[in-house]
């Protein structure tokens, strides 16, 4: 294992990414661009109601439309028994999801559980004909009372899944319920500790549903051949998990399915689930042609998993010196129509940046009649941090302690015991807070009225999981690097750089390829901030393997022991005879058996490398008449362990920060009382544009992770966790009004200001 060095040749540089030219010239192939011969086009019929029992699906009129070649429903699923299977999202800990839930979310069988749920699909000679055919399918159903938030879910008599029992760690609590799971973590004795707190702040907060907002809609093409082989071309965050889930949903062995990942236009967690792939496959089998489906933007918003709305209560007790004595959190997250909100992750992260000896956390995964939620960049953590970090800001104000100083007093460190039990390995929380405290931004004066500054800290645990990599040496001294991590943000280059560093090559002398599931060993999702970390580690090991094989080869050429050969600065040399040396390129050109190196890693579940901490400093200006928030200045500080490709690390920090700003200020699902999303367009679901933002300043902190050869920490996610809370704190300092709801849009800010003014007037009149 390499020790973490200060000076690398390639690591830390900024080469042009390998796939860059194709992407700036329009040559890169994304899933909607893909075509093969004999192709049909598919469209999906979707539920018009939030909660109902299906009575009848009549496809007869649709079948008669000229150009229609096949129609499928849930009846067309074959073969597999109703067993628990692991999906991409659950593979991390061995938790399993019932196959029925998975299948029902792809094509509904007995009930309609959310507006937009797929019910049937048509393949036709054009997408326009397919769409027309969908409108001819007759769906009969009996409506039931919908459940649309966690309060309703926990109290309503309308039960969504009759067989569901609440999971509590190892047991199931008998009785009909919409509560899928109750998580709890307890450390020390919080009830007793709160009695000794000199200051206690407790708040109830809510957040609305938001979507990952990737610009590329889902698309998939499938071809089910006469020999039973199914090939799927799609945009996915994990070709292997997509293969495994698709195979199980279809009821075929995984070896029968090949997933070819195409270039992907954003995911942020939302492209881990499969939606279209099994449908395309069923249509292909039924029609005898390959079939392509592409989602519309409306379908993306209404029918794919967003991140949940939440109801949270957080309470923190501290002594006069600012030491946190006790903390308590109650987190209710909407799972959507099937179990699996990120409340467990939220529970893990809610107090993660702090050393608190007495903690109680209760997390609730509540079924509601909305689309099943999916991961969104550090899922669960952002909502939890919104609660904790705004409460901490209040504690700081009441104690008259600087907000950064208060966090420093309580910072988690290596050896700090977490609420769920284990202690931290080496982490960079303290360093991130210190960097914020010492930064020019934090210490610059605020001179204008209606301007406020806020900070917040966030954590994401990162995952490790499995990756494979093979490296083949070419005769001209370049290497072909084969890996299976779909590349959403330049990871094929950050992975290539790690191999290049080992072998003394330039990045352009490494030719990386992201390949299909037939061509490389199992590789887990591109997500969880694991790609540069774990697939990079596999590439590192494959490169070491290549190096060792070359050492053996040159030792043979020189007739010396391999132990006597060293490799440095691109040259192999004998330790004992300085005349004996050969360059990497020259050795590569020698004939002999091909040199192929192999790397294969399994780097554990959550908390890989200790995770990453990130913080935000934001200055906002509020227009008191309109409630409009202008972001004047934003700084993101994040611990990257070691920044392999600093431009990409900065890019992740900036991207996550801006998603956090959108989440803070504007983004939400506007839902009617019958469960319909009314703003399912990019006009009305308001994501930040270039005009809404300043430059996003970044400060990369490097506290190397234990274990990784270059000390890498995944950076993709932690940067979205703190911005909404930082913005909320900034709005408070600009307006005097505490924010307890996301988003903090102009309407809610002006209402808050008006209510605040009336409170002051009323208190003056007493």
């Amino acid at each position: 294992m390499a020790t973490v060095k200060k000076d690398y040749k390639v690591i830390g540089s900024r080469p042009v990414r390998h796939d860059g030219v194709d992407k700036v010239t329009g040559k890169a192939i994304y899933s909607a661009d893909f075509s093969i011969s004999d192709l049909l086009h598919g469209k999906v019929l979707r539920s018009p109601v939030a909660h109902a029992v299906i009575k009848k699906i009549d496809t007869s009129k649709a079948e008669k439309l000229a150009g229609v070649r096949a129609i499928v429903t849930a009846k067309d699923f074959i073969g597999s028994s109703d067993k628990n299977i692991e999906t991409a999202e659950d593979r991390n800990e061995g938790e399993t999801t019932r196959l029925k839930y998975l299948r029902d979310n792809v094509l509904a069988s007995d009930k309609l559980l959310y507006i937009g749920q797929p019910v049937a699909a048509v393949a036709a000679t054009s997408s326009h004909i397919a769409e027309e055919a969908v409108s001819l399918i007759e769906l009969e159903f009996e409506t039931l009372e919908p459940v649309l938030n966690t309060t309703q879910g926990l109290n309503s008599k309308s039960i969504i899944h009759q067989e569901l029992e609440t999971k509590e760690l190892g047991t199931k609590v008998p009785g009909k319920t919409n509560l899928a799971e109750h998580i709890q973590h307890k450390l020390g004795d919080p009830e007793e500790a709160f009695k000794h707190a000199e200051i206690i702040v407790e708040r109830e907060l809510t957040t609305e549903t938001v979507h990952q907002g990737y610009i590329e809609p889902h698309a998939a093409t499938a071809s089910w051949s006469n020999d039973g082989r199914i090939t799927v071309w799609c945009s996915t965050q994990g070709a292997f998990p997509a293969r495994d889930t698709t195979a199980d949903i279809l009821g075929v062995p995984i070896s029968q399915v090949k997933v070819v990942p195409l270039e992907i236009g954003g995911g942020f967690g939302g492209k881990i689930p499969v939606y279209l792939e099994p449908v395309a496959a069923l249509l292909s089998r039924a029609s005898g042609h390959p079939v392509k489906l592409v989602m519309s933007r409306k379908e993306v918003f209404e029918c794919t998993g967003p991140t949940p709305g939440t109801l949270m209560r957080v309470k923190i007790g501290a002594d006069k010196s600012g030491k946190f004595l006790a903390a308590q959190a109650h987190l209710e997250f909407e799972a959507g129509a099937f179990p699996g909100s990120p409340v467990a992750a939220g529970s893990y992260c809610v107090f993660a940046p702090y050393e608190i000896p007495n903690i109680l956390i209760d997390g609730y995964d509540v079924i509601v009649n909305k689309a099943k939620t999916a991961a969104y960049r550090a899922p669960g953590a952002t909502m939890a941090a919104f609660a904790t970090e705004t409460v901490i800001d209040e504690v700081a104000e009441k104690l008259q302690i600087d907000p950064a100083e208060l966090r420093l007093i309580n910072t988690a460190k290596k050896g700090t015991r977490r609420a769920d039990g284990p202690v931290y390995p080496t982490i960079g929380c303290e360093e991130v807070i210190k960097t914020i405290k010492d930064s020019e931004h934090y210490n610059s004066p605020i001179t204008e009225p209606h301007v406020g500054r806020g900070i917040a800290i966030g954590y994401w645990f990162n995952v490790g999981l499995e990756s494979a990599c093979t490296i083949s040496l070419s005769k001209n001294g370049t290497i072909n690097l084969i890996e299976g991590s779909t590349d959403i943000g330049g990871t094929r280059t950050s992975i290539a750089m790690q191999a290049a560093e080992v072998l003394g090559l330039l990045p352009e002398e490494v030719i990386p390829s992201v390949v299909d599931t037939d061509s490389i060993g199992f590789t887990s999702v591109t997500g969880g901030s694991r790609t540069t970390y774990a697939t990079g580690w596999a590439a590192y090991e494959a490169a070491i393997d290549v190096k060792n094989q070359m050492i053996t080869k040159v030792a043979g050429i020189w007739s010396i022991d391999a132990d006597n050969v060293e490799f440095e600065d691109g040259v192999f040399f004998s330790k004992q005879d300085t005349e004996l040396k050969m360059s990497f390129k020259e050795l590569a050109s020698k004939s002999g058996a091909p040199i192929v190196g192999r790397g294969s890693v399994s780097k554990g579940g959550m908390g890989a490398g200790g995770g990453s901490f990130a913080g935000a400093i934001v200055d906002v200006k509020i227009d008191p008449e309109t409630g409009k928030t202008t972001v004047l200045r934003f700084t993101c500080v994040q611990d990257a362990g070691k920044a392999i490709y600093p431009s990409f690390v900065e890019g992740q920090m900036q991207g996550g920060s801006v998603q956090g700003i959108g989440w803070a200020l504007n983004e939400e699902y506007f839902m009617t009382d019958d469960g319909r999303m009314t703003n399912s367009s990019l006009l009305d679901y308001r994501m930040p544009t270039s005009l809404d933002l300043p430059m996003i300043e970044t400060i990369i902190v490097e506290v190397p992770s234990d274990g990784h050869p270059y000390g890498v920490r995944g950076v993709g996610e932690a940067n979205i966790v703190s911005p909404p809370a930082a913005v909320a704190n900034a709005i408070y300092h600009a307006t005097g009004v505490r924010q307890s709801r996301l988003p903090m849009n102009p309407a809610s800010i002006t209402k808050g200001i008006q209510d605040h003014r009336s409170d002051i007037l009323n208190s003056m009149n007493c």
Partner: protein
Amino acid sequence: MTQSKTYVRCVINGEDTEFLCEPRQSLLECLRDVLRLTGTKEGCNDGNCGACTIMLDDRIVTSCLVLGVEANGKTITTIEGMASPDGLHPVQQAFLEEAALQCGICTPGFLIASKALLDTNPNPTEEEIRFWLANNLCRCTGYDKIVRAVVKAGEKIREG
């Protein structure tokens, strides 16, 4: 049912081009599905994301809001026409050097729009850049590096 097709003749990326399309097909659909020029992307199909941005005569337009039949007699530039056999356009090169793309799906639209800006205003301020590009959505980058890339491209173009 299929509609009867209309004959359209135009210039695309400097080449005489002809195609048949149904009246209901957008120019975006014609470019991608009829002409197989898939560099221009579809993100929303209602003019709100800018991923389908092209030049139509001397204007930047969202091609999802233009009908294919409207292209008759017009001059169109798409991302496929930006580089030349001599190399990338300075704005393409700048996007690469400044790491102004992550997933790349919005990049063709941004490049067309950015080039159009620099063709009219070779030395734009940050605010002018942000205003001009406000109809191009990016979810990955937060726009910071895109703005830097446009500034850098402007410098390169002015240097000649």
